[in-house]
């Protein structure tokens, strides 16, 4: 037994420390000092996020395997965790007002605890190089979320959403495990590298079924069509803070984990087995997500479908199987975090102040709340991929990354994706239209949003504007991935 190996897991351990701190603070501190919990947690997490950037692993010096290859960390992995940390930090700031609200104050500590544990689960998903650890991470990332979805006790939707979430989540993990059992039957191991070493020789129907089930299992978290149906209902029903967490962090982590699994475990059977599956999934995801998004009036539900289609774009980074693809995927996640959180920030501010979440209520918002509408517009433009906002760059790079793969099919795929951006632009513009162009009297009166909400929005706006133009972000991500020609050795 070599407990020193735990030292490789600096970020996970840091996270657990915060978790324990919150846990004990919540449990044992006197009532009057409880009010500071939200602030302290956020601050602690901020420090932790910063720490991630100075973690020695970022230099790429310590690509470590721990626990006999079960756990792995490397510069890229640290980078993606940092990206997630930033997102979580913004979510934490955004949710401060909600967490301190009268209804939620009783569950405030639990909110932070669960959130941190799910993040821990995501870390494990990303770092796991063994399927058992991966499954545990997956479950840790989704089960507590079900509880979080149910946080809004006053709304039946919240419970409904939780039910739908947990039932589908368990079902999908059952399917996933079924697939895993097939993989195990084929290769006799659950270590990624061991599987990868044997899998090329084990092609056949069983492998295909296994891969399909594995994709379905992770596709659930990513909400790829047709595994996405829970998404809209859960996003709509969950408290907005949880929704924003679900939509960006959970999705981002799953996307990266998906990339790791597809590249590292099944990378050798790319063209034989799963390339075409992903083609189909991407086309379906983007198209169906868009088609549903068109007709939504509820902002949260609308963003749910938008995030479904965004997941399809993220998958372009996976299907590329190139270094550019990987860095573009990470970059896409980063930009997506900022853009989507900006949108959710506005939704949350409005919901907290007026309780309205329908697009119809947003009509004429520019007259009453110009800054909120401006932020929302930037978010929409960024999500739609309009320059000079970051979304444009991320989209462009992810397409570039995909096309680097070079087959004709990928051109067709990218073309379909590009045509779908028109549909997506349409519905994003619908929001802009409602806010800016509609002449109706706005139902939402002018209000001053809370300081925390404003801070979060400013961060997001800054990110949306700066992330693309300031090229060093993407450059450093590409530096991480470049230089490795065979993707399987990347991580």
């Amino acid at each position, binding site marked *: *037994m*070599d*407990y020193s*190996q735990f030292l490789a897991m600096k970020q996970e351990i840091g996270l*657990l420390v915060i*978790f324990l701190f919150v846990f004990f603070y919540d449990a044992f501190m006197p009532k009057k000092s409880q009010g500071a919990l939200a602030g302290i947690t956020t601050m602690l997490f901020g420090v932790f996020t910063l720490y991630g950037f100075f973690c020695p692993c970022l230099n790429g010096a310590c690509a470590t395997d*721990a*626990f*006999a*290859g*079960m*756990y792995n960390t490397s510069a890229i992995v640290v980078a993606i965790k940092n990206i997630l940390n930033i997102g979580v930090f913004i979510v934490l700031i955004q949710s401060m007002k909600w967490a301190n609200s009268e209804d939620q104050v*009783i*569950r405030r500590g*639990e909110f932070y*605890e*669960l959130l941190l*544990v*799910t993040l*821990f*689960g995501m870390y*494990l998903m990303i770092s796991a190089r*063994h399927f*058992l*650890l991966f499954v*545990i*991470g997956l*479950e*840790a990332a989704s*089960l*507590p979320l*079900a*509880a*979080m979805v*149910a*946080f809004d*006790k006053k709304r039946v939707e919240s419970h409904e959403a*939780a039910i739908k979430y947990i039932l589908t989540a368990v079902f999908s993990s059952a399917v996933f495990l*079924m697939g895993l059992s*097939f993989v195990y*039957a084929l290769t006799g191991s659950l*270590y990624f590298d061991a599987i990868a070493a044997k899998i090329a020789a084990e092609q*056949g*129907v*069983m492998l*295909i*079924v*296994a891969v399909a089930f594995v994709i379905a299992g992770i596709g659930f978290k990513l909400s790829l069509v047709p595994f996405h149906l829970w998404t809209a209902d859960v996003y709509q029903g969950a408290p907005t803070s949880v929704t924003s967490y679900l939509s960006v962090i959970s999705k981002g982590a799953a996307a990266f984990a998906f990339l790791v699994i597809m590249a590292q475990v099944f990378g050798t059977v790319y063209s034989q087995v799963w390339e075409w599956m992903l083609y189909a999934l991407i086309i379906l995801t983007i198209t169906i997500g868009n088609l549903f998004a068109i007709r939504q009036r509820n902002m949260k539900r609308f963003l749910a479908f938008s995030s479904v289609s965004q997941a399809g774009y993220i998958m372009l980074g996976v299907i590329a199987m190139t270094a550019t693809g990987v860095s573009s995927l990470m970059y896409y996640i980063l930009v997506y975090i900022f853009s989507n959180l900006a949108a959710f920030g506005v939704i949350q501010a409005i919901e907290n102040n007026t309780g309205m979440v329908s697009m119809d209520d947003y009509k004429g918002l520019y007259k009453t709340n110009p800054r909120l509408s401006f932020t929302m517009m930037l978010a929409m433009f960024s999500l739609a991929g309009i320059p000079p906002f970051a979304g444009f760059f991320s989209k462009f790079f992810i397409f570039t990354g995909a096309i680097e793969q070079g087959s004709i099919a990928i051109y067709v795929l990218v073309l379909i994706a590009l045509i779908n951006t028109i549909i997506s632009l349409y519905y994003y513009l619908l929001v802009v239209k409602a806010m800016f162009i509609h002449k109706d009297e706005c139902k939402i009166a002018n209000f001053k949003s809370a300081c925390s909400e404003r801070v979060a929005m400013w961060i997001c706006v800054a990110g949306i504007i700066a992330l693309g133009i300031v090229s060093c972000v993407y450059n450093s991500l590409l530096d991480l991935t470049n230089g490795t020609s065979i993707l399987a050795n990347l991580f």
Partner: protein
Amino acid sequence: MELVGSIIMLGIIVLSIIVFSVLTVTTRKILRSATYLLFTLFATAGIYFQLDYEFLGAVQIAVYAGGIVVLFVFSILLTSRPGDNSAKLTSKKHVLGLIAAVGTLVVAGYALFSRCTALCTKLSPMKDYTMDNLGTDLLGSGAGQYLLPFEAISVLLLACIIGGIVVARKR
């Protein structure tokens, strides 16, 4: 003789698994459903025992049969009202369910049968594996040892407890 015993034992186990599984999902009384589940779980434990995974069998009985099923029964009693039989299935749902089930059976079955040789593997002697080994493997950090998952799952369970409490709390 041992072989015959095994075959008979296996026959019983397999049969009960199939029968009780089917009954679990077809019976209209929810409490019975839970009971059939219990039998199924016992039968599963039987498989584990037969395959020389005694510890696993024990866990199966303790956790599943002892824990989960009891949880089910309690919650059923908590939520159901007298005479609360489930209504007759609509044929549409029935068909959908059948399609999904048969589809799964066909695809997964085809996948398995595509590797006939593996399916026909016979039982071979297992390496000697004691509780000692099991303990070491569970808390070791080497290859094939599971310290990290063990710790991770503890966090997961803690989180689930917290989540359960939050959700179940009245306010």
